[in-house]
């Protein structure tokens, strides 16, 4: 069984981005870029399914600029077998990415697609659900446990208030939540091996997908600043302030 894993190149988790002074976006020049953390969990899950003998081949896919090749090499260092980059310098919104992934899914005939639940740059949390809808497939979002057997996936999902388990027919789309697994560290030998794995580059037009954005960003601004308050010397002062000044207790 083939698995498709989608990975996004994003500003590294530890970088605090700065809004550009002209309000057109955030400044990502010379900023460290990494694989979206939830996508790393997605790759790791696919590799674990391969190690269990459930998945036979893992294809990592990324959509975006040429540098996404680095992200795909990381995915292959974790254990993906080959990679496809849909290369474009155009802005890609979730609906466009979902359409690109749908075209690749049709071509690759994968049984399972695993994606991160959300990218930490645009915080959209949409692509997996959109892909499932476009492909007419079932979806299991925010997964914390995935078991695949007999043409079905049994997935435990993180929902408000607790956990829910659903069963979806394959092919299907799964999006990962934090607790699904802890991605392994990539080792140097695996990084070297990943350099030799096949990486195919296609263009959106090759897949017949119109990626024109539907949403226009008019402005990007700093959030309202919250000023620091005061330090209190002890618990008694804190309680007094909460009672008499803030009046919240």
């Amino acid at each position, binding site marked *: 069984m083939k698995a498709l894993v989608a990975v996004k190149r994003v500003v590294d988790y530890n970088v605090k981005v700065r809004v550009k002074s002209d309000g057109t976006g*955030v400044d990502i020049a010379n900023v460290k870029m990494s694989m979206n953390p939830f996508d790393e969990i997605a790759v790791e899950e696919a590799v674990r399914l391969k190690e269990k003998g459930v998945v036979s081949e893992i294809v990592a896919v990324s959509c975006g600029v040429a540098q996404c090749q680095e992200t795909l090499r990381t995915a292959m260092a974790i254990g993906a077998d080959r990679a496809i980059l849909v290369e474009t310098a155009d802005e890609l919104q979730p609906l466009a990415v979902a359409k690109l992934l749908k075209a690749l899914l049709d071509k690759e005939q994968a049984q399972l697609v695993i994606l991160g639940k959300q990218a930490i740059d645009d915080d959209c949390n949409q692509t997996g659900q959109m892909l499932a809808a476009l492909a*007419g497939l079932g979806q299991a979002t925010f997964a914390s446990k995935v078991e695949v057997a007999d043409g079905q996936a049994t997935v435990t999902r993180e929902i408000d208030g607790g*956990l829910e388990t659903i069963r979806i027919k394959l092919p299907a789309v799964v999006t990962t939540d934090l607790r699904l697994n802890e991605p392994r560290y990539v080792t140097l030998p695996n990084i070297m091996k990943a350099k030799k794995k096949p990486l195919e580059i296609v263009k959106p037009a090759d897949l017949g997908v119109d990626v024109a954005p539907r949403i226009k960003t008019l402005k990007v601004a700093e959030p309202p600043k919250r000023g620091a308050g005061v330090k209190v010397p002890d618990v008694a002062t804190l309680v007094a302030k909460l009672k008499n000044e803030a009046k919240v207790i």
Partner: protein
Amino acid sequence: MAAVLVIAEHDHGTLKGATLNTVTAAAQCGGDVHVLVAGQNAAGAAQAAAQIQGVAKVLHADGASLAEQLAENVAAQVVALSGGYSHLVFPATAHGKNVAPRVAALLDVAQISDATKVVAPDTFERPIYAGNAIATVQSADKVKVITVRTTGFDPAAATGGSASVETIAAVADSGRSAFVGAEIAKLDRPELTVAKIIVSGGRAMGSSEKFAEVLTPLADKLGAALGASRAAVDAGYAPNDWQVGQTGKIVAPQLYIAAGISGAIQHLAGMKDSKVIVAINKDPEAPIFAVADYGLEADLFSAVPELVKAL
């Protein structure tokens, strides 16, 4: 002006609070506000929706396919009703986020996530990069599919309305998914997203036993909900659905007490709209102090019990 459809969050019998904030957001988007209650034996929730002030009509879809709120079926139900609506508005809850993108893709329109402000019927503010930037975005699609961050909108009054309730047929089951079971934590305290006071713990709690032992008495005393930082959840000190932050819950209580939380940007993203923030941390350099109204530089293991006594 075309009507706006709110997709209600409910447990069939009752309506979830997030629906009320979503109605407020919807009312700012355009014409009449209609509410869809898609469920099974959900007359209770439909009746509650009809009482919300400002709701003109309730659509009550009832059937077995909607019993478990599976995304495939709920999305199909929304799409079947979508004709004639200018906006389809969901709360940005786990359920709303699960269904809304599916609806948008089926309609071939973009989706706007986590709107915090309606600037104009086609223009919205939403946080990006864990709330470190606020984007103003404009949709060119004829139908706007939106999830709204409930902390950005006041709840509509739950009573005082008298909308008509129209019963409609439920969609057929997709056959692609089935519900197996759920483990919903029994809440003996308020839910995080609606709590007036939240007591949150971080990695400094040290263990799940310490987390419970130190923070539970404080939460009990204050009638507060318990929250946690991602670091505490990752370390297994607290369940995932307690997580406050970029990838967890977004909260804005009257009082947020952060104990042993350093204040990573991902955590601040989830709580910085709280009215009053108290930080208890022994590290004077902890970034949480930069957003706290009241900072107490102290060892939480002595300060929190002392606080419980003083209250």
